C-alpha cells in the first residue's frame, strides 16, 4: 500500500530509525515543523496553513514513482569488535576514549571506565555463563545482548564482577519477549525503570536496602542501575531526541534507581516467594514507573521523621490513590486502550519497615491478607459507577481486554451490590519492604499492560554467580532442566 508517513521535525530522526529498524529504511516521510504543528494544532483555522505548507510535498511523495535507489537496501558495515584509542599519556588516552565514546553515542555523558580486554575478562569472572550466550535483543533497535556485551557495559558503568549476575538478570528482564521495554525507553513521557533485588545476594554484594536506598554512595546500587542504562544505550541503542523521546528526560538518566528488599526488618516473607521463586533464590525485579509523573508517577506517604501518621492512614491513602485511577472503569471513547489513559495500572509499593511492622504486629496483616485487602479495597462499587463507566467496563469485557479468567469477576461487578476490580489481576499492587527507620512508604505506578508487549513488571532469578554464595543456581534452573 503506497503510504506517506507524517511526523514532526523533532521526531524525524526517530521516524527514520524506526523505519530502518522495521526493514523499510526508504519509507517516504513528511516531517512537519514541530514549532508550527504543536502551536497551531489548537484550531482548524490555525492548523490549515500548516497543512497547506506541506501539501505539495505530500502529493509528490504519494505519486512520484519509487526510484531504483529506494528499491535498494542500504549496506551496513558491521561494527568492529575492538577499538584502539591512543594518547600521549594514560590520562590523555582515557580522555580521548571518553570523547570518542561520547561522540559515538556510546556513553551517558559521564566518564566511563575503559572496557579493556583485561577489564572485561575480570568482569566475566563473576559469572559461569558463556560470553557468547544470547539473552535476547534489546529495544528499540534490537541490538543483541550477549553476556560479553553486558559485561562490557558493566565495566563502563564501574561495576564489580560480583554484581554481574544481578545485572545479567536485569537485562534478561529487559529482553524478555513479554516485557515492554520499547515503550518506556522511547516514550515522550518520562517513564522510568526501577530495579529491586530480593534475596541473599543483595547482602553479599553490599547493596543498600535501608535509609536512602535510592541514594548515591553505594557502589552496587549505583553501578547496577548505571549498567542497565549503559545496556539500553548500547544494546537498545537509544539516544535522547533521536529515539529516546522523553520530553523532559527520565529520572534514571544515568542510573536507574536500584535498591534491595530490606528483609532484615521486614515482618513478611520475601517478595520473591509471592512471585513463585524459592527462599534461597536471589531475584531481580524490573518495573516500569511513571517517572516524573506519568500514570501517577511516584508518590510518598507517611510522616517520615517529622510527622506522626498512623499506619492505617498510610495504607488507606495508598489504597485511595490506587482506587482513584479507576482502572477499566475509566470512561474512555474506545474502552480501555493501553496508551490512551484508559488502561489499568500496576503498582510497586515499598513499605518502610516501621509501617510494615505495625501493619503486621498491631493490625494483623500477613503478606497474603494484605495483598487480598488491597485487591478488595481498590474495587469500585457498582452503585458508585455512572452509566458511561459501566459502558466502558462492558466494552473492556466485550473487546477481550479483560483476561478470560477474570471476565466472570468483572461481570459480577456490573450488578447491584457488585464491585468492579480496580486492578486487572490480583497482586497487581506488588509490595516489598525497603528503606530504613524512620522512612516513607512510596508507590510507583505505571501501565499494567505495556503498549507494545504485555508486561511492565517482571522478575528474574539470578544464576551463574561465582563470587558469592547466593545466585550460583536458582530454583528456575532446576525447573528449566526438567523441561
Amino acid at each position, binding site marked *: 500500500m503506497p503510504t506517506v508517513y507524517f511526523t514532526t521535525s523533532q521526531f524525524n530522526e526517530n521516524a527514520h530509525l524506526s523505519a530502518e529498524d522495521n526493514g523499510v529504511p*526508504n519509507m517516504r516521510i513528511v516531517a512537519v515543523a514541530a514549532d508550527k504543528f504543536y502551536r497551531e494544532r489548537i484550531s482548524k483555522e490555525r492548523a490549515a496553513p500548516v497543512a497547506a505548507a506541506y501539501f505539495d510535498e505530500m502529493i509528490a511523495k504519494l505519486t512520484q514513482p519509487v526510484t531504483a535507489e529506494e528499491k535498494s537496501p542500504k549496506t551496513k558495515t558491521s561494527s568492529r569488535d575492538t577499538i584502539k584509542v591512543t594518547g600521549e599519556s594514560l590520562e590523555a588516552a582515557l580522555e580521548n576514549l571518553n570523547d570518542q565514546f561520547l561522540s559515538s553515542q556510546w556513553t551517558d555523558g559521564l566518564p566511563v571506565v575503559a572496557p579493556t580486554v583485561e577489564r572485561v575478562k575480570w568482569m566475566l569472572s563473576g559469572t559461569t555463563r558463556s560470553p557468547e550466550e544470547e539473552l535476547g535483543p534489546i529495544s528499540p533497535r534490537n*541490538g543483541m545482548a550477549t553476556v560479553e556485551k553486558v559485561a562490557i557495559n558493566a565495566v563502563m558503568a564501574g561495576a564489580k564482577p560480583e554484581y554481574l549476575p544481578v545485572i545479567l538478570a536485569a537485562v534478561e528482564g529487559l529482553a524478555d519477549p513479554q516485557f515492554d521495554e520499547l515503550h518506556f525507553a522511547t516514550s515522550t513521557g518520562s517513564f522510568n525503570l526501577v530495579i529491586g533485588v530480593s534475596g541473599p545476594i543483595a547482602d553479599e554484594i553490599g547493596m543498600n536496602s535501608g535509609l536512602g536506598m535510592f541514594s548515591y554512595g553505594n557502589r552496587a546500587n549505583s553501578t547496577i542501575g548505571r549498567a542497565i542504562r549503559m545496556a539500553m544505550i548500547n544494546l537498545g541503542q537509544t539516544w535522547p531526541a533521536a529515539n529516546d523521546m522523553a520530553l523532559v528526560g527520565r529520572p534514571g538518566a544515568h542510573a536507574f534507581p536500584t535498591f534491595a528488599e530490606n528483609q532484615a526488618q521486614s515482618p513478611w516473607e520475601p517478595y520473591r516467594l509471592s512471585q513463585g521463586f524459592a527462599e534461597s533464590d536471589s531475584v531481580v525485579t524490573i518495573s516500569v514507573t511513571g517517572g516524573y509523573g506519568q500514570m501517577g508517577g511516584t508518590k510518598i506517604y507517611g510522616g517520615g521523621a517529622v510527622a506522626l501518621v498512623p499506619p492505617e492512614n498510610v495504607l488507606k491513602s495508598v489504597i485511595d490513590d490506587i482506587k482513584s485511577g479507576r482502572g477499566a472503569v475509566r470512561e474512555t471513547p474506545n474502552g480501555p486502550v493501553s496508551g490512551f489513559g484508559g488502561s489499568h495500572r500496576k503498582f510497586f509499593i515499598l513499605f518502610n519497615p516501621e509501617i510494615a511492622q505495625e501493619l503486621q504486629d498491631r493490625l494483623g496483616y500477613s503478606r497474603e491478607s494484605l495483598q487480598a485487602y488491597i485487591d478488595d479495597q481498590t474495587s469500585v462499587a457498582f452503585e458508585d459507577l455512572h452509566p458511561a463507566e459501566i459502558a466502558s467496563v462492558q466494552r473492556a469485557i466485550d473487546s477481550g481486554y479483560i483476561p478470560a479468567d477474570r471476565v466472570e469477576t468483572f461481570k459480577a461487578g456490573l450488578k447491584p451490590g457488585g464491585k468492579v476490580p480496580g486492578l486487572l489481576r490480583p497482586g497487581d499492587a506488588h509490595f516489598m519492604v525497603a528503606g530504613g527507620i524512620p522512612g516513607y512508604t512510596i508507590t510507583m505506578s505505571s501501565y499494567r499492560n505495556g503498549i507494545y508487549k504485555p508486561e511492565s513488571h517482571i522478575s528474574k532469578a539470578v544464576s551463574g554467580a561465582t563470587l558469592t554464595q547466593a545466585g550460583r543456581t536458582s530454583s528456575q534452573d532446576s525447573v528449566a532442566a526438567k523441561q
Partner: protein
Amino acid sequence: MKRLLQGMAVGVLLLLPGLLQAAEVALEVLNPRGEIPPPPFHAPSERVSALDGKTVGIYWIGKAGGDNFWDGVEQLLNERYPNTKTVRYQGPFDLGDERATQIVKEVDTVLYGVGD
C-alpha cells in the same frame, strides 16, 4: 666534570621528545554496541500515478489537535482533486494486521500520521 654534566643534560633534553613519543599509550577496548541483525528489507510500495479518482486513507493516532491538521489536508484534497475520496481512520500507533488489512481493502493510498 661540570661540563660533562651539562653535556649529559643537553643530551637528555635532545632525547626527551623521542622518549615522550615512545611513551604514547594505546588502549585496546571492546566495542560495547550490540549487533543488530538486519531485518528483512522492504522497498516502498509502488505509488499511484495520480490521485484523481482514487481513495485516500488518512490514519491518525488520535493525539489531541491532530484532527485540525488533517481537516486542513482533507479540505485541500477535496478542493484540488474533486474526484478523490477520503476515508478517515483513528487508532493506536500500531494499527495491527487486522486493521491494516481492512484499510488496504478500502483505499488506494494512505497518509499515516503520528504527530510525535
